[in-house]
């Protein structure tokens, strides 16, 4: 997630007009922002548009960032809001359609295809979860944020964040276990 001190220094430089400093922040958080946006939107192109909106919105609002707090959660809140706004505007269905080959048996795939199949199933399963729940589990298990930080990002109580992660995990772990059983 990048060192907080470095982030603060980069923010200060950006506020002073240093374009490259903002570029470093973008590179540092690009992967995370794109994944979080994709957890909301499903479609990778939509997700990239939303992540970009999030970064540019953060740039404009940078003076409002409280440097006593970590930068990552602040940025992720903006990215998550940008993704949610985009999803509402376009009213897209989050889940990607399942590849027909994954649904109906077919020949036993090789290892790469199997991983790809798992990814597709996970994306579908994520898409079936409520938006807040899938953001919570991605922020926790993929991005490593704490429950308290997730609560701050999503604007919900910490107990709710904890509960959202729990319910999402229960669904996804079941899917993962089934898949492992299937490929055995």
């Amino acid at each position, binding site marked *: 997630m990048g060192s907080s001190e470095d982030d603060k220094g980069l923010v200060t430089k950006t506020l002073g007009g240093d*374009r490259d400093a*903002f*570029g470093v922040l*973008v*590179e540092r958080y*690009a*992967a995370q922002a*794109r*994944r979080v946006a*994709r*957890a909301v939107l499903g479609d*990778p192109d939509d*997700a*990239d548009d939303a*992540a*970009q909106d999030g*970064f*540019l919105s953060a*740039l*404009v609002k940078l003076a409002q960032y409280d440097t006593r707090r970590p930068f990552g959660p602040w940025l992720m809140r903006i990215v998550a809001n940008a993704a949610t706004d985009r999803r509402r505007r376009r009213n897209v269905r989050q889940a990607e359609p399942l590849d027909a080959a994954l649904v109906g048996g077919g020949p036993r795939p090789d290892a790469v295809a199997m*991983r790809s199949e*798992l*990814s*597709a199933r*996970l*994306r579908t399963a*994520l898409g079936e979860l409520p938006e807040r729940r899938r953001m919570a*589990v*991605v922020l*926790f*298990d*993929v991005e*490593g944020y704490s*429950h308290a930080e997730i609560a701050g990002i999503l604007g919900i109580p910490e107990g709710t964040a*904890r509960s959202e992660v*729990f319910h999402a*995990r*229960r669904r*996804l*772990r079941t899917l*993962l*276990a089934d898949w492992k059983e299937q490929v055995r």
Partner: protein
Amino acid sequence: MKNEPSFDHRPDPELGAALRAALEPKDDHAAFAARVMAQYERALGRASVATLDVLASWFRPGIAAAVAALILGFLFGRTMLTPAPASFDTAMAPLEGPGLDALVTSQDPPDASVVFSSLVDQR
């Protein structure tokens, strides 16, 4: 993958890795970063324009408020410059003058000119 401790405080590495692979974009992040940075100046420019728009939207109400303040200030100032009405003592002062005796001791109804002249004399 661990078997549920439901409210686990630690991330699940296996689930996390699987989700990460599922959400990972196909292209590299450098290309994405370049795309964002290509919008850097435009975003800051739009923000400045938006700020000017906000200021512009304040212009008319600001002018109206200033005019209203000027009018109120003028009216208040004029009120303050108008001579204050005579005090109670001043108003009663003629009663203490020589005309008072004539008014009180006379058997006839008072002549208005006496009253007025008494008032004028006191002033």
